[in-house]
């Protein structure tokens, strides 16, 4: 079985449309981020406590809410998830406070003595740890990008590295925008997903670049932009194929992986889609734009390149 072989799609010719499309997505993402006052950080980065309780019988959210209030946590966020017996309690803490889960649990046990529960999950992150994790996440992404820039410049050319990095920023900003638009939380796991997207999208981009590098040597008579277009077309079936297998497992993870890795898998779904798109429509066209400007400066029309 084969599909998408011997395609002659004019990716480069249509790059303006792609750039406008991406630009709109990015603008929408940034607008959403601004309107919502920045990313919706989870307690990993803000500091706070979150608890998941599993009750033996159905429980009224109002009872839990007033119990938590009685324990002195007015601003706690309480919601049910997954079913009428599962309750999620979240307390954001701005200041270091010794104990939050114990008094809440005590208060709930007192209020609902004949509906026992088990604590499924407790996550408490002190504000200092939150700040540390924020810095660490920021630097991790920065360091990763730096190494990529170095490696790609070494194996290819500097401009290839620029193309790859721009595509990566494109992917991250759009995924961040989707998360902001849907009101999803940025947790440690999501940062891990972002870095995985970086790795994945780069992988895709490198494969196309590799073809370009090869074709630049073989197809000397072709114009620069058509070499790039041919290269994208040649690697298109691989690009689609790998995206499909990756998407399959990520979708399975999203639907069957359980709520703990649900949003992680969602980030990957968005990332794989955007990452595949960007390696075709963003990373390579940047090479063409760059080359065009270079030729213009030299006063020569875009021609074959040694």
């Amino acid at each position, binding site marked *: 079985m084969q599909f998408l072989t011997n395609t002659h799609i004019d990716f480069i010719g249509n790059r303006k449309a792609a750039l406008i499309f991406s630009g709109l997505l990015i603008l929408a993402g940034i607008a959403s981020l601004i309107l919502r006052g920045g990313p919706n950080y989870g307690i990993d980065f803000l500091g706070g406590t979150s608890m998941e309780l599993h009750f033996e019988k159905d429980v009224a959210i109002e009872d839990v809410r007033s119990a938590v209030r009685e324990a*002195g946590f007015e601003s706690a966020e309480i919601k049910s998830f997954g079913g009428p017996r599962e309750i999620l309690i979240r307390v954001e803490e701005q200041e270091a406070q010794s104990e939050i889960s114990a008094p809440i649990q005590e208060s709930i046990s007192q209020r609902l003595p004949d509906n026992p529960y088990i604590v499924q999950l407790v996550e*408490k992150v002190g504000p200092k*740890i939150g700040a540390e994790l924020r810095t660490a996440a920021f630097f*991790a992404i920065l360091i990763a990008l730096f190494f990529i820039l170095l490696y790609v410049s070494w*194996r290819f050319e500097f401009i290839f590295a620029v193309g790859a990095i721009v595509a990566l920023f494109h992917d991250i900003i759009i995924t961040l925008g989707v998360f902001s638009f849907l009101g999803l939380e940025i947790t440690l796991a999501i940062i891990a997903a972002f*870095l995985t997207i970086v790795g994945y999208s780069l992988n895709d981009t490198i494969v196309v670049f*590799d073809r370009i590098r090869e074709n630049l040597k073989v197809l000397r008579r072709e114009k620069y932009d058509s070499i790039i277009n041919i290269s994208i077309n040649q690697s298109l079936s691989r690009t689609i194929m790998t995206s499909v*297998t990756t998407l399959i497992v990520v979708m399975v993870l999203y639907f069957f*992986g359980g709520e703990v890795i649900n949003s992680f898998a969602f980030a990957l779904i968005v990332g794989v889609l955007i990452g595949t798109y960007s390696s075709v429509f963003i990373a390579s066209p940047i090479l063409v734009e760059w080359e065009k400007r270079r030729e213009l400066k030299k006063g020569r029309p875009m021609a074959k390149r040694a």
Partner: protein
Amino acid sequence: MRKNNIFRTIIIALAVAWALVVLFPTFQLTNQEKKAEAYYSLIEKSTTLSKNDIKAALSAGNLELAVRDNFRGNDGESVDDVLTTVNDLTEIDKKIETTEPNSIKLGLDLQGGTYLVYELNMPALLEKLSKQNDEVIETALANADKTAKSENRDFFDVLTEMLQEKGIALNRYFGRRTDSDSEIISKLKDEAHDAIERTLEVLRNRIDQFGVSEPSITKQGSDRVVVELAGIQDVGRAKSIIGTTALLEFQLEAEQDVVRGVFNEINRVMKKDLSEGDIDSLAVTSDSSVAPAKVRKDKEVSLEEVFGESSILEEKGVAQADTSDSTVLLDEDVFQDRPFDALLANVGGDIGVPTKNVATVRRILNSPDVQAVLPNDIEFLFFNRPVQNGENSFYRMYVLKKEPELRGDQISNADVQIGSQLQAGQSVVGMELTNEGAKIFSKVTGANVGKRLAIVLDGKIVSIPNINERIPSGRAQISGMANIDEAKDLAIVLRAGALPAPIEVIEERTVGPSLGQDSIRKGTSSAFFGLMIVIVFMGVYYRLSGLVADIALLLNLFIIMAVLAGFHATLTLPGVAGIILTIGMAVDANVLIFERIREELRSGKTVRAAIDSGYGRAFKTILDANVTTLLTALVLYQFGTGPIKGFALTLSIGIVVSMFTAIVVTRVIFDFFTSRMTLKKLSI
């Protein structure tokens, strides 16, 4: 080519053999655990013991005894029948002990457990080390701590800077008069280092005695301790054992006339302030600079309601305040004359503070005006639990001499005893003092017969017995424990010793055992579904060649598991996610190769030539693409905390292994077929 293939085949055989050897214990362990589970439920059925009881007895080595004592028996069953099961279980348990360290470890999120990060309270430690504690150093320490935390800087750097700005020499508070600032700082850093080491030691002792299998207690940075406890049921109890400072002090009650004098003074100050309308000076407002941290968590009892403009005279008698929490219990008759006493009550001859009033009373006691008139050598302390008296609950409050007669470091042993006489049937904690402690105790008790000696734990009174006679034996008791668990826990912390300074939980991640099992189940089923779909998809798209890639994929997963087991890595839920992601991405190398082979075939090459150049040309691409992915995975590993590390680890292993299986293994299979038969067409 042939030689090359022999070499490759040997490598593959070695890798598979190694993987089999390394994975064997994990395989064994699953079987052993299944058997053990069966034995557990058999014993559970025949005795009154729960699974946890059996486990505890098993690790203590007295399961046989426990079974005999708690034998219930089903029809026709004798104790001996159960004892054979006990023997079997003991044997299996021993085997598990040897196989477990060599198997794939499951992370806390998969087997249930808790991950706690504690931080040493540096200001508290330094206050303890300080030669004199005044407001200047206390605020400096608190501010330095705050700044260091918010700006993510070293505490000592910030402290030095702050004190220099204010022109305060460190030697006023620490070290010798002649020491320079930098000498003192380095000494303090040593002390902090010491303190964290001692904390580690004390926590190890406490957790060992609490009985958790394979706890992990490690230092992180210069002032943190990471505690990982797997498979524990009662996280709350474990936390309270780990987290208590457990500073035990024996303090004598102040003389009666001193106490009377102190109360008169407080009443006088309050009356004066009230008549001047200077309510603020009494810390009536909830100004956080006046209210100490301890108060904040108590239910707020606002004085404004009572002492504010409108309501002072509206209260009648001993007003039972309405249900709103912002009121206090007040004895109106004495309020005009002795306003402080009006907030208190007489509980069995002792001073009782209605629970509603505790916060208010604390605030008054801590207000500058009151502090100014209190003698330096006494302090007000509360009992650690309330007493019920009529409709209301009260906390008893005592005036104690500040300087302790004896400290917890003089305790040589502590255990739970069942009380006699007055506390018949109750759990009490018996303490044995060291020789030196016994001498001091004997002297103190001898000199203070008829007085009361408070036993104070972390600033709260746990017991305040009357001294009836001199006690030369060096034995003392703490009574009034709510239940036997509380008594056990107190004995543990007393035996293990006090922490050098309080510690705080700054990060906690707890996963219940059922959620862990749920995650394993969902993780395995996702991996299985994902694998199946990808395998079928590859088979359909690349036909026989796709199946070759599928073999490589299965081998890839197998070797990933082997690497995890071989390097004693821990498998976490994100780790499982990493493996699942690998399933999708590992076939990429084969996709690249196959697409190349298809191209070469289209250009008219023979099968063998197409395979050769397909592999040759794809290799460079695969290398570049995988190195960059590996780079990001390694950065992720470096930066990540526990769970993320697990993900990055399996992802990295998966990438490296996939290069081996997708390039080397599939090549050998292709070459095997193409060398035996001349293929006109390749199924690709």
